[in-house]
């Protein structure tokens, strides 16, 4: 699949956005500027961006608790996203969703969810709407290796299989739940499970290679768009941070040699080398891109920090379409 230089650079830009956004958010958690915690996609940028850029801007996407990477990968503006993490009035969900439960409908993001695996059937429903409305939109359902052992995934895969729904089931296999190795709780290969539903299942062994991810997802998305039904793509990757920021855990659960080997394969560095080697861009241009994204993230953080908190009345708004339905026993 031949990508233009602009597309290749856009991939790098979005990976940088995720990296710098999530690192900035991590700092803000530690400074107490973001309440609770966030789950970063640091280390998994190639897997997210490769998938997001393999579908169209108007395609649908659902996600999980590792939540900001997906909308950024799909093209979200960073300011409202960061403001949401800070619980500000200017947040993409008006400060009501937070990190775990955000959606950016402008880029087809139908919702990240903190209930592992639960958004997958909703992606199937969005795909069903695409089919019923004779659109050619595809739904990209992100989930982790942990969700691969939730029943809802298989209900959704079965529905998508029998109804030939345009869904790409995208398993982000970062190889650990919080600390539990996927290998100890997962029977067989996740990608192979697709075969039981008579749908294609492929594994991308190098999920740090954005182009490898892109090509696999592109094939699945094109197939879905042609009306040939769903696919499962499992992408092997690694999270560079803890399960969530500020989590006080020994990292003993990950073997040091394994960890070093993955950390040495930073997807952004790898792709930068590739862009240089292929003559897509010169080092100065890539440096400028990095500086540009750093400024963009800094502006988003400033926007979020300077934004007002929501008015308390917002807590009672938007429960029902007609506010009068929101009776509450005083």
């Amino acid at each position, binding site marked *: 699949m031949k990508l233009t230089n602009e597309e290749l650079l856009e991939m790098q830009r979005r990976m940088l956005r995720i990296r710098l956004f999530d690192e900035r958010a991590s700092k803000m958690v530690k400074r107490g500027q973001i309440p609770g915690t966030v789950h970063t996609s640091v280390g998994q940028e190639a897997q997210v961006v490769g998938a997001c850029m393999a579908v169209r801007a108007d395609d649908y996407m659902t996600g999980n608790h590792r939540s900001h990477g997906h909308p950024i990968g799909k093209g979200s503006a960073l300011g409202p996203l960061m403001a949401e993490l800070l619980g500000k009035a200017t947040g*993409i969900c008006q400060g*009501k969703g937070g990190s775990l439960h955000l959606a950016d409908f402008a880029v087809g993001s139908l919702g990240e969810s903190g209930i592992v695996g639960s958004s997958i059937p*909703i992606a199937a429903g*969005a795909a*069903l709407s695409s089919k019923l409305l004779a659109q050619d939109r595809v739904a990209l359902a992100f989930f982790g290796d942990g969700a691969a052992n939730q029943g809802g995934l298989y*209900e959704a895969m079965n529905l998508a299989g029998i109804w030939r729904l345009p869904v790409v089931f995208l398993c982000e296999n970062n190889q650990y739940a919080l600390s539990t190795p996927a290998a100890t709780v997962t029977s067989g290969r996740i990608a192979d499970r697709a075969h039981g539903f008579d749908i294609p299942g492929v594994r991308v062994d190098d999920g740090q290679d954005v182009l490898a991810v892109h090509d696999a997802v592109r094939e699945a998305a094109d197939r879905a768009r042609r009306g040939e039904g769903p696919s499962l793509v499992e992408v092997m990757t690694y999270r560079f941070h803890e399960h969530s920021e500020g989590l006080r855990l020994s990292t003993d659960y990950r073997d040091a040699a394994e960890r070093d080997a993955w950390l040495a394969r930073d997807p952004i560095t790898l792709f930068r080398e590739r862009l240089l080697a292929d003559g897509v861009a010169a080092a100065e241009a890539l440096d400028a891109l990095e500086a540009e994204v750093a400024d963009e993230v800094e502006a988003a953080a400033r926007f979020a920090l300077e934004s007002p908190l929501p008015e308390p009345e917002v807590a009672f708004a938007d429960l029902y379409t007609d506010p009068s339905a929101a009776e509450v026993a005083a």
Partner: protein
Amino acid sequence: MSATAPAPSTTTMTYREAVRLALREELLRDEDVFLMGEEIGVFEGSYKVTAGLFREFGPIRVRETPISEEGFVGAGIGAAMMGLRPVVEIMTLNFILVAMDQVVNHAAKIRYMFGGEVGCPLVIRTPNGGGSQLTAQHSQSFEVFFAHTPGMKVVAPSTPADAHGLMKAAIRDDDPILVVENLQSYKVRGEVPDDPDRVVEIGRAAVTREGSDITLVAHSFAATRALRVAERLKRDHGVDAEVVDLRSLRPLDTETVAKSIQKTNRALCVDEGWATYGVSAEIASRIQRACFDDLDAPIERVGLAEVPMPYAKQLERAAIVNDDKIMAAALSVLDLGPDVFSY
């Protein structure tokens, strides 16, 4: 202005037929409406509510599903978020528990949690109820679980006219709604107005029998029982009972309930589900607040015994709500019979 409008024409039909008519009319009215559920096509639904619809509208709009409640309720949510109007049948209320996460964590929260931009106009319709020896896992009336959940609407009609009008209102509503039908109610007959544009407003209770001595508050099939008990109270004791059929559990029409009790000064809440933490607990709380100075007796409640529904007929009879238990409870509230409340 002064001319009396002619009485609207009506047709007598069963509750089951009234639901079916509402579904058919809405399928005809709005091409975004489609039905989804187990065995609703060729088999026409386990309780035959969708009879004839598969033949008329075909497999795209009357969509048969595998036995995957979590999957197809979730798919209904996704389709509803994208602007379609799915009407998802759960074979009986009991089976919705495996889709509880989809309903409570997604459908009910989408509009609120994501800042009000996108809603979820999903209808889930399903019958509750017991009394047919279907036992513990197949006889339940826990609609209150959903009425407890902000973001959900729950309606539970007891008459054919309300079943028709509320179903149509639910399908046209932009919020997620659980429409609770009832296995015993399906065969209840009544008049349904012929006007296909008539809807029954969600969130309004109905006074289905006027009286001055006691108010029986109920919903779903318990509201039908309450009317029967009211007739017995009149016949056997000369008591005039008022019956308030809640029709909608969320939003809840406290005003109609309170107005009735301000008149009758006595209240008995009847619910086929468990009383503890139940619909009747909520009603009692609201009554005591709205009618504190009007009450001549404690607000009392009748519900399913606090056990899972047992199987053997005589055991089921011991546990379930029936007319005799409602009668005894009403007489107790009226100081015309012994105290039957032991909780």
